[in-house]
Every structure is written in structure tokens, then in C-alpha cells.
């Protein structure tokens, strides 16, 4: 069984391209040309070079002595937080901006939750000299303000979105509407492995550099390319897709995806899609979705803006139903505790999203020889406000 998408963008029963006709020409063009473009030698060479010289890759794989002692396993941290712009999101935006240029597009739009994808998009647009408009839920504009300021300084226009819960889902709706209204000159840089085919596969390919590097780095450090566990948080699922990618077909590697439980899976304020969702269609693909019995999308909740989304990408829905990956969830409090712990034991302040992956270390019984890789998808600068109020409440 393959865990990759087929040529119509299906992962098992999930995926596809459920789009209104207004989006058809753009999406169809991408479907037809994305593989040819991104697999070409010129593209690969430029992409690789930018990842190295501009984004600072490879990101280190850091052996954490203190977490290893604490959890009785060999814990490695994949340091996506050290990338330029502070998260894994830059891997995807570098790829997509090169693609957009080849397609002759002059205007870039994006959605963002935590603002990391927005900053990563604004960054590559500044470098490419392209107009950049970022849609961001009004609630997220307020709770991730450092990133809003960065996007503005980078020359992007940040458009707050006031519909729905004013978070990531609503920003995505608005970006789609923009694309419908600007079908000729605009490329939509989607920030996760969601959306219509080919986005899930395309974004996963751009992020797959994470697991490509993990394999090489593990080989160098341990003499073996594969770990026992890879742990990553899942909003839409792009950092997890990248961290899992080159291990998907190796059943000896346990894949752990961590969703945001918010205030608790059963609290009514949660974003744990695999536990709360059913199969449905949103934002152009069929996947697991949090929804009412009537098929209205339920507003999710997580303290972490990047995980505050009512669905997961179709690749992950398939990994869940086939049981190839195990899905866990961490609450706001568990994530905050894990973030503080890493900060105090290792001097690394992780993003609140990544803190959900770290929180999963508490939930798994490891054997002492287990090699565990946790993907630290981003850094916590943007989350200082949430961290400070938590930190003060614990003193």
C-alpha cells in the first residue's frame, strides 16, 4: 500500500480537488505542471541552493541529553525553529515562489494562522519582488502580533478576516475568494498539506527535506538512518508530512501525529480532528473534518493559532484510518508545560504548535534504546505573551 497520493491527488479515499469552476483553470494548470516543474534539474538546484544559503538548511538534529535522561530514551530534536523566519514554513514558500515565477504570476496571496506561514510568504515575496497579500483571522492578528508587524515590514499587506471564528479556517476562505476574484495574475501559496490536489502532495514534497535530512543526520550520529519514533504536531499537517515523508514506507518507524486538544477533547473547545471529525469536504479536498451532523463546519479551538483548524490534510486522514500513524492530542496546558520544560532544560523556546509535539513525550512508554525524533517545527518568539502569562501563573 502506498501512503503517497495517486495521480488524481487521492490518499486512499481522501484528497481530490473539490473546487468551484472559478478555480478550475488555476488548479488544473498546477495539476498539469507541478511535477514537471519541481522535479526539473534547474528547479531542484535552485530550490536546494536557496534552502541552504537563504533558509540556513540543513537544520540541526540536536541530541537532547536532558530530555533523554528525563524520558529514558534517546531524544533528538529536529531544529526547524532555527530556519530563517523561525519555522518549517519557509521550506514550502521557497518552493512555491519559484513555481509562481515560472508560471509568470505577479501577485501572491496566502492565509496564515500563527503568522509563520504569512511571514515566510512575505519573506520570499520581498526577495522575489512580488506583491503579497496575507489573509489572517482578526483573532490571530491580535494574538500573534509580532508576526503581523514583521509581515508589514516585509512589505506585505495583512488583511484581517472578520468572518466565522476569525481564525485560520476563515482566513483560508478569504484567500480562496481572493483567488476566485483574481484568476489570472495571482498564485495562492497555501501553507499546509490541505486544499485541492496538487497542494497536499506539492507542499509535502517541499517539506520532505525535513525527513531527508533526518535520515542523513541519524546515519551520521547513530549509524542507522531510521529512528523508532518520529513525533510532530498537526495543524493542517505540513511539518508532520515533511518529518514523516521518507519514513512512510518503513513500518519499523512509528509515526506520532499530535493534534491540539484545546481545553480537552470533550470540552467543546478543541481542534482534535481525528477524534472529533468525520469525512467531509472543505477547502477543496475530502478529509476528516469537525462538523455538525448537518455538515456545517464546527469552529475549532486551540490556544495555538497554527493548530486551530477544523480539518487535517488528506495524507494524514489516510495515515489515521490505515493506522499507519498514531494520533495523540495535547491540551493547551500540556503544551504550555512542555514548552516551559524545554525552555528551562535546554534553553530552547519552542513555538506553541511545536510544544504539542513535545507534550507527547509524556504520553508514550519508550524503551531506553529507542531513538526518538521530535520535530521542533518553530520557535516561540511569537508566543511570548501566552508563555509569560503561563509562566507567571506557575510561580
Amino acid at each position, binding site marked *: 500500500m502506498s501512503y503517497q497520493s495517486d495521480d488524481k491527488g487521492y490518499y486512499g479515499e481522501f484528497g*481530490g*480537488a*473539490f*473546487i*468551484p*469552476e*472559478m478555480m*478550475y*483553470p488555476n488548479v488544473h494548470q498546477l495539476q498539469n505542471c507541478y511535477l514537471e516543474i519541481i522535479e526539473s534539474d534547474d528547479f531542484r538546484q535552485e530550490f536546494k541552493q536557496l534552502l541552504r544559503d537563504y533558509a540556513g538548511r540543513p537544520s540541526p538534529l540536536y541530541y537532547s541529553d536532558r530530555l533523554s535522561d528525563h524520558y529514558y530514551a534517546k531524544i533528538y530534536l529536529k531544529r526547524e525553529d532555527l530556519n530563517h523566519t523561525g519555522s518549517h514554513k519557509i521550506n514550502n514558500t521557497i518552493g512555491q515562489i519559484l513555481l509562481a515565477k515560472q508560471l509568470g504570476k505577479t501577485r501572491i496571496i496566502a492565509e496564515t494562522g500563527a503568522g509563520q506561514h504569512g511571514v515566510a510568504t512575505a519573506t520570499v515575496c520581498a526577495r522575489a519582488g512580488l506583491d503579497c497579500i496575507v489573509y489572517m483571522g482578526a483573532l490571530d492578528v491580535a494574538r500573534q502580533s509580532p508576526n503581523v508587524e514583521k509581515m508589514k515590514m516585509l512589505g506585505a499587506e495583512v488583511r484581517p478576516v472578520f*468572518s*466565522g471564528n476569525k481564525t485560520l*479556517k476563515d482566513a483560508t*476562505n478569504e484567500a*480562496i*475568494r481572493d483567488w*476566485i*476574484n*483574481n*484568476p*489570472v495574475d495571482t498564485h495562492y501559496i497555501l501553507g499546509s498539506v490541505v486544499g485541492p490536489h496538487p497542494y497536499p502532495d506539492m507542499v509535502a514534497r517541499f517539506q520532505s527535506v525535513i525527513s531527508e535530512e533526518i535520515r542523513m543526520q541519524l546515519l551520521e550520529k547513530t549509524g542507522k538512518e531510521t529512528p523508532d519514533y518520529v513525533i510532530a504536531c498537526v495543524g493542517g499537517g505540513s511539518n508532520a508530512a515533511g518529518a514523516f515523508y521518507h519514513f512512510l514506507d518503513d513500518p519499523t518507524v512509528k509515526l506520532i501525529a499530535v493534534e491540539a486538544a484545546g481545553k480537552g477533547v470533550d470540552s467543546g473547545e478543541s481542534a482534535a480532528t481525528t477524534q472529533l471529525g*468525520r469525512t*467531509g*469536504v*472543505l*477547502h*477543496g479536498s475530502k478529509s476528516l*473534518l469537525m*462538523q455538525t*451532523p*448537518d*455538515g*456545517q*463546519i464546527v469552529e475549532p479551538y486551540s490556544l495555538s493559532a497554527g493548530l486551530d483548524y477544523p480539518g487535517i490534510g488528506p495524507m494524514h486522514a489516510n495515515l489515521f484510518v490505515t493506522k499507519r500513524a498514531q494520533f495523540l492530542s495535547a491540551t493547551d496546558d500540556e503544551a504550555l508545560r512542555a514548552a516551559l520544560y524545554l525552555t528551562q532544560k535546554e534553553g530552547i523556546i519552542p513555538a506553541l504548535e511545536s510544544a504539542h509535539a513535545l507534550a507527547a513525550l509524556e504520553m508514550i512508554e519508550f524503551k531506553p534504546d529507542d531513538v526518538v525524533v521530535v520535530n521542533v517545527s518553530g520557535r516561540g518568539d511569537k508566543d511570548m505573551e501566552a508563555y509569560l502569562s503561563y509562566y507567571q501563573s506557575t510561580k
Partner: protein
Amino acid sequence: MENRITSLFKRKDENILSIYFTAGYPELNDTVKIISQLEKSGTDLVEIGMPFSDPVADGPVIQQSSEIALRNGMTIHLLFEQLKEIRKSVSIPLILMGYLNPVMQYGIEAFCEKCKEIGIDGTIIPDLPLEIYETEYKEIFEKNTLSNIFLVTPQTSDERIKQIDSLSTGFIYMVSSSSTTGVKGAVNEEQISYFERIRKMNLRSKRLIGFGIYDKASFEKASGYANGAIIGSAFVKALEDEGTETETRVKNFVQKFY
């Protein structure tokens, strides 16, 4: 296939006035009232919107009406309940328009069967693409004499328009410009050359032009290039006028087109 849509076009093939509204808006139980008054006032065809929480092809007016309709408690089950007896009093063609997810949760086959039972003639489901319709659902729709209506836009290639034409059993919905619903503006040169291009293709299907049609002038202009036109946001907006009876608002609005 024959239904009220095909017989309408046999009877009349110009200046067809088609009007959209969102079920459950402004009030939950306005549905039958609005449809009946639309028919009485001379509307040829009615599109009943099934509200969805995330209507990506819609502009602010229909977004807002959908949000209010959902808050009022509208669901597909309730809508079918409201429409149960509609064919005792209304004879113009009725089309249900909405996004795929709520229909999928209802069950597509069950949905189509219920439509037939009630006397619904067609559906518009913008995010159900042609390819998936053709391979998975066409038979179910046709068995229930439902015309699924497809959209074309100024960006749709001739080749694809021909494909859409061959799969259409009701009419082709020509989106007037590249936009979400409710963006209005005078019909411009670019749109006219698009309308002309399609007219010259001599399609077998009838065509209605929608999106951005809002008054008599834009209706007449659009109708000049097709079999008629569709009004959505402008009507939904007119329904929000407080202080008069819903029927009066409907009547006053439709009158402006004659």
C-alpha cells in the same frame, strides 16, 4: 430528460428571470412565503440556497444571509420539511443550490431521492466538480430527473465548455465575470466579448447569466446574450429591508424587472 426546467425553456427562451435566495433568511420559516410570492410576481425559476458555514464562492451578502440562516436553525432536513407540500401551490421550476459537504452528510442518493419526491428539478453544487459528478453521481441525479447545473466562467476553455454542454440537462450557468457572488458593476466590453464567444459556440444547452446582475438594465443587457439571467445578492439584500412584510419586499423587488 424532462422536468420543469426543460419545459420552461420550451415555453419561453428569452428574458428568463431566475432568482436566488438563502433558505432560512431573513426568518427561518420564510421559505414557502418567498417562493410563492416570487412565482406570483412573475419569476420564471427559483434557486433555493442551502446555507453553508463556509461558502467560498460567495461574497459578503450571501455569506451573511447564510450565517443568519444557520443561526436561525436552517438545515437540509428542515428545508425538505418546509418544502414538503410546495408542489400543491407552486409550479415554476425549483433548484436547490448549496455546497457539497452538507449534501454529502445528508447522503447524496437520499438527497436526490428526496428532491424527486418533493418536486425539485435541479441542483447547483459549485464545489462538486464535473469529473466527479460524471463518474460518481450522474446516474443518481438523472434517475431522479434532477438537472445538475454547471458553471462556466470567462476563464473556462472552449473545450471544457463543450464537455459541460454535453453533460448539462437543464441550462448552463454563465458566471458573468471572474468573481465571487455579489460583485456588481456595469456589463463591460470584456464581459460582452465573453458572452459573444459563448453565444457563437452554438451550444445545445440553454444559458443563464448570473453574478453581479442587480437591476433592470443589467438584467436586460445580460439577457441579450443568453436566455435570461440570475439575480442573487441584490434580491437577498432587498429582503433585509425591515418594516415591510416579506411578501411586499419580494413583490416590490421583482416588479422592477418588468
